[in-house]
């Protein structure tokens, strides 16, 4: 729990800043049977980012990275909107889009685990080609759809709550159950910590890796449906642009190590919420929104420095804790 302390403090500080600057920031009202309020908005607009970050956490935990999520977001929204605009039922459209995302994720996993390409490069291929593919699906146009059932996914309400939040909560619960109550989480951490050792211990490292990339693409696909459904249109060019960077940022803020081997789903959700709250804060306290990126740069640098053992040793005059150091040495030996 100690590593969740910093993200929690950061989120609390951001929320306090908002309370100080905005009147009625914490108030949540019920209008027309729906919940309204700034906090609900943060959750609602942050939902796609949380989803993508959850998937990204699994991939990063195996020691990989997935740059293609932004393109997958665009492809899934584009395919679903195209199907709906051609009079397919919403169910078929969603199923087709998510099916394609599963295939794309499996392709990423195959490149990384099957062929052994570095994750950054393997997913870079789909990141570049995927944008082209999304534009190919939409024919370079922005497809607009008018379907109340589709609108529900990203912009609708169910049981007084925005539907997107419920989807995120469900996926979070399922992922948390699979990784923390079953052995799956341990297996993923083993693969991320040391693929060779985990294989010798009888774990099918390849299958675990492929599964992580597939799950990540599925999450990105659902996020893509949410984004496109919220605006009732699909934009192959701009949907999900730079979301991979925000997601990686969220994962890192949440205390998951980029070298793999340990992860925290709760930390990731906190990280994504911090990013979304930061964006909201910048709008609400009247700082020009153009400077959002500057703040993000500041946050990434600070968080990374705080997590770096070398920085802690230099600044706080503390020796790096023995446990992570031993793990790092072990890893060097294997790769060398």
């Amino acid at each position, binding site marked *: 729990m100690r590593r969740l302390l910093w993200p929690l403090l950061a989120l609390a500080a951001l929320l306090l800043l908002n309370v100080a600057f905005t009147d009625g920031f914490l108030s949540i009202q019920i209008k027309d049977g729906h919940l309204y309020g700034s906090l609900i908005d943060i959750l609602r607009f942050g939902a796609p980012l949380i989803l993508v970050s959850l998937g990204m956490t699994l991939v990063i935990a195996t020691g990989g990275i997935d740059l293609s999520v932004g393109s997958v977001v665009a492809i899934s929204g584009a395919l679903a909107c195209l199907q709906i605009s051609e009079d397919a039922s919403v169910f078929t459209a969603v199923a087709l889009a998510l099916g394609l995302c599963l295939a794309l994720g499996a392709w990423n996993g195959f490149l990384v685990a099957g062929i052994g390409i570095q994750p950054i490069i393997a997913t870079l291929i789909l990141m*570049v*080609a995927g944008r082209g593919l999304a534009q*190919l699906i939409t024919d370079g146009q922005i497809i607009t759809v008018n379907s109340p059932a589709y609108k529900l996914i990203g912009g609708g309400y169910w049981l007084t709550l925005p539907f997107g939040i419920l989807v995120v909560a469900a996926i979070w619960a399922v992922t948390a159950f699979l990784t923390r109550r079953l052995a799956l989480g341990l297996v993923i951490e083993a693969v991320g910590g040391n693929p060779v050792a985990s294989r010798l211990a009888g774990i099918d490292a390849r299958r675990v890796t492929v599964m992580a990339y597939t799950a990540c693409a599925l999450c990105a696909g659902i996020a893509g449906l949410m984004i496109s459904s919220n605006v009732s249109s699909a934009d192959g060019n701009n949907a999900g642009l730079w979301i991979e960077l925000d997601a990686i940022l969220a994962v890192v803020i949440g205390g998951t190590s980029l070298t793999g081997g340990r992860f925290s789903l709760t930390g990731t959700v906190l990280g994504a919420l911090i990013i979304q709250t930061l964006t909201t804060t910048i709008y609400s306290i009247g700082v020009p929104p153009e400077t959002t990126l*500057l703040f993000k740069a500041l946050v990434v640098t600070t968080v990374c420095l705080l997590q770096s053992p070398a920085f802690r040793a230099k600044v706080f005059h503390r020796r790096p804790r023995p446990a992570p150091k031993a793990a790092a040495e072990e890893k060097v030996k294997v790769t060398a």
Partner: protein
Amino acid sequence: MLVTAGLFAAMFVAGGVRYEGFATGQIVLNVFIDNGFLLVVAVGLTFVILTGGIDLSVGAVVALSTMVSASLLQAGWPWWAVIALVLAMGVVLGGGMGAIIHFFGIQPFIVTLAGMFLARGLCYTIGTDSIPITDPAFTAFAQTRIDLFADLWISPSVLIAVAVVLVAAYVLHYTRFGRAVYATGGSEQSALLMGLPVARTKITVYTVSGLCSALGGVLLAFYMLSGYGLHAVGMELDAIAAVVIGGTLLTGGSGYLLGTVLGVLVLGLIQTVISFEGTLSSWWTKIFIGALLLVFILLQRLMSRRGA
């Protein structure tokens, strides 16, 4: 690299057979003219990738350079002072990122990602609109045509880009620093044990990349005659793709600068072919680049397996 050269030749011949007026020297020169800035940026990135690192901030630094140049020129600064300041800025940004990467042991990926956010953020802080450049020296640079023999011509940017390539090739292949870059990329531990200045090498390569990005930004400012925070979006990916297609191993330690030049040429030629085809939409460029990346990475895998 031979594969890349072969591919370039094959694409050029195929283009020449298929389209009228394609197989002329000017087409190759146009690829240089349109991609001079990418060439310079990719050269800087080659240094970083050879040490086994990565620099995601290049596109943003290019945009920042165009933005700073345009706004300073608008404020009445002389052109030489602007260029000097922009280059110095690139050096400081690159050196800063290199220092953080080395001294605090943070992955290059995440540090340069922060650098990318910082540079783009600074762009938008300077201004959200495109700023035109009207400085006579800059416009002269943009419009000068240097005639070669037989109706062929190039722009001054091409000369600068070629000069950068030559200097970089010399540094990389004929100096101590160049050997240290390869050694660090091959195995940082061994390089350290051999007594090579790993710290200085690592910081220097990021500084070189920052400098090249800034210079690329100046060339882009010549080419576009404007400064804009949205210039060069996604350029880091083009640059990485060019380096990979040029045969440099992303794990570091192996590759040639000439390969990167060929990589940039192949990317440029793809764009030319697609514009000659006419009926193909521009998004096919992205799909082709993705497919090419895949083919080249698979080739790299095959070759390194055979070597092992």
